[in-house]
């Protein structure tokens, strides 16, 4: 395997007496989809929150593009080009697609919003994601379907020339057709050269889209393996017992 764009070494994180992450190693590769799987409470969310700068681990190394870095807040992560798409998407229903994509990082000319520049860039990004289902990018997010909302949230994450995109359960609330659409989009992000990290409970999705699979078990990294080298049963065993074979 090529050298990872992001790798974590022996990361530890505790909340009071609870040791949530125990010497976790994790890597993500440009152009690859890395699925992060594990049972509830295995530490998946804590791990990605550490990557996104929301939590600061007590010990452990972060290596980004070959250099050691410290991420001590969400802004540090954003500055490195790490974007996270939350499960609840964090969209404002009352704003249109363009405003949602630029929220908090609006383009300004003088003191006014540069609407045309934002709209063009948003349109370009969405077109680049081959999303044709949205009628107008000036429509309110409230009027979008679940899959379309997910698309907007993902488009917002890739708008900033980001290098690593983390998706938290992107298909959890979607129907069959929309899941298909979002998985295709995830694949496309990786094909465009991004490192994509996907948290998922759905092993079918994982096997459809991932290049490698990181399985967590009770706060430890049970294994990070290439998809082609394992079967679904192997992954289930990793998730439920933490044992490789």
């Amino acid at each position, binding site marked *: 395997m090529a050298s990872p764009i992001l790798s974590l070494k022996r990361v530890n994180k505790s909340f009071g007496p609870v040791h949530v992450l125990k010497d976790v190693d994790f890597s993500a590769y440009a152009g690859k989809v890395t699925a992060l799987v594990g049972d509830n409470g295995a530490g998946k969310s804590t791990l990605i929150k550490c990557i996104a700068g929301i939590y600061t681990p007590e010990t452990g190394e972060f290596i980004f593009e070959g250099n050691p870095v410290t991420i001590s807040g*969400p*802004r540090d992560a954003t500055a490195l080009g790490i974007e996270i798409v*939350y499960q*609840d*998407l*964090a*969209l*404002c*229903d*009352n*704003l249109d697609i363009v*405003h949602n994509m630029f*929220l*908090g*990082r*609006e383009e*300004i000319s003088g*003191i*006014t*919003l540069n*609407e*045309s*520049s934002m*709209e*063009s860039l948003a*349109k370009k990004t969405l077109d680049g994601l081959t999303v044709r289902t949205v009628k107008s990018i000036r429509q*309110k997010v*409230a*009027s979008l379907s679940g899959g379309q909302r997910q698309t907007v949230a993902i488009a917002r994450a890739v708008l900033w020339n980001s290098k690593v995109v983390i998706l938290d359960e992107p298909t959890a609330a979607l129907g069959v057709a929309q899941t298909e659409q979002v998985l295709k989009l995830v694949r496309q992000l990786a094909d465009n050269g991004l490192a994509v990290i996907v948290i998922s409970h759905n092993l079918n999705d994982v096997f459809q889209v991932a290049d490698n699979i990181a399985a967590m078990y009770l706060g430890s990294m049970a294994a990070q393996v290439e998809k082609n080298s394992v079967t679904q049963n192997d992954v289930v065993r990793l998730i439920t017992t933490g044992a490789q074979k």
Partner: protein
Amino acid sequence: MSQDLNIKQSATDWWSKVKAGQVGALPALLGLFVLCIVFGTQSSVFLTPGNLANLLTQAAAVIVIAMGLVFVLLLGEIDLSAGYAAGVCGALLVIMITEMDYPWYLAFPISVLAGVLLGAVIGYLVAQLKIPSFVVTLATFLAFQGLLLLLVGEGGTIRIEDPVILAVENKNLSVSYSWIFFLLTAGAYLLSGLLKFRKRKKAGLVDNLFKLWVIKTFVLIAIGTLATWALTVERSNNPDLVSLRGIPYVVPVILVLLVGATFVLSRTSFGLHIYAVGGNAEAARRAGINVKMVRITAFMICTGFAAVAGMIFVSRANSISPTTGGSSTLLYAVGAAVIGGTSLFGGKGKVSDAILGGLVVAVIDNGMALLGYPAGIKFMVTGAVLLISATIDAVSRRGASTT
């Protein structure tokens, strides 16, 4: 491109927006239209130029409070004390002018600044200490009422004789200035709209709202022309003694506030952040928006507007009393904003809604008084109209979320 799309297309787009729950100002416009026809046919006085001018000056203070309230309502918060904040700031204004001999151009900005500071305190309590705004402003409602009573003195009123302050509600632009004012306003509106569409076309963005905008502009200018004409007609009973013609000074005052507030809300990132916080505060926070600062600033703007309304109250009554800004003022102002189409759930509304809703409230008040209905009936009808608006808001919200 815009020229390829016909009016039908933009009308269809607009109608699908209405169906999706974005009814906006439509119910208020219809309501205003129906009310004007009903009162116009029932009362011989209602549609006279004199009553029109009267209506505007009656509605002015409530409209200004409602405009400020829109900022707070957009966050899903409320400011129950805005009415008495107007009273307190009005009292400060009168005291500074009559007892301390400050000129109006010093006293008025200071009174507005005082309003902004009061708003900062409310905003701090709501945003930083996370006390529900309903409770905070219920407390400040009582406190401001007390403060006003202390400032004015029990049972007393303080008269004001400053000609500039009094002119706002009692004097009119001359006929020629009225027309100049109208032409300037219409021209600026046309120009800003055209510039916006040209800029979008240059950027190669598809626009199917252009034709609709042309129609809207045409209607607005027609109404404006009619209103300006009506206001420049002689409305004095005894023109030889005293002539009453022209647009009341308070109209340009409100227009300046409207343009300023609309600019802030629709063209600046601060305005966008207000909508974002009202729509989904958590999403706004994660997007890096300083949610607390947005909240505090909105309350500051709200009471700042209330202070301007205080000046208008003082101008209209020629004095300040312990009940200025009290009784139904605040309720009418909240009603005005909601009737105009601002959502009590936050995230939806415009400053122009407050003007529209304020006119509806004023028309009911004025029309029913002309028809000789007692105050009790007036309150009940206004309450019913408010309830209808809140219902439309709630139902349209449900319609929007079930698509």
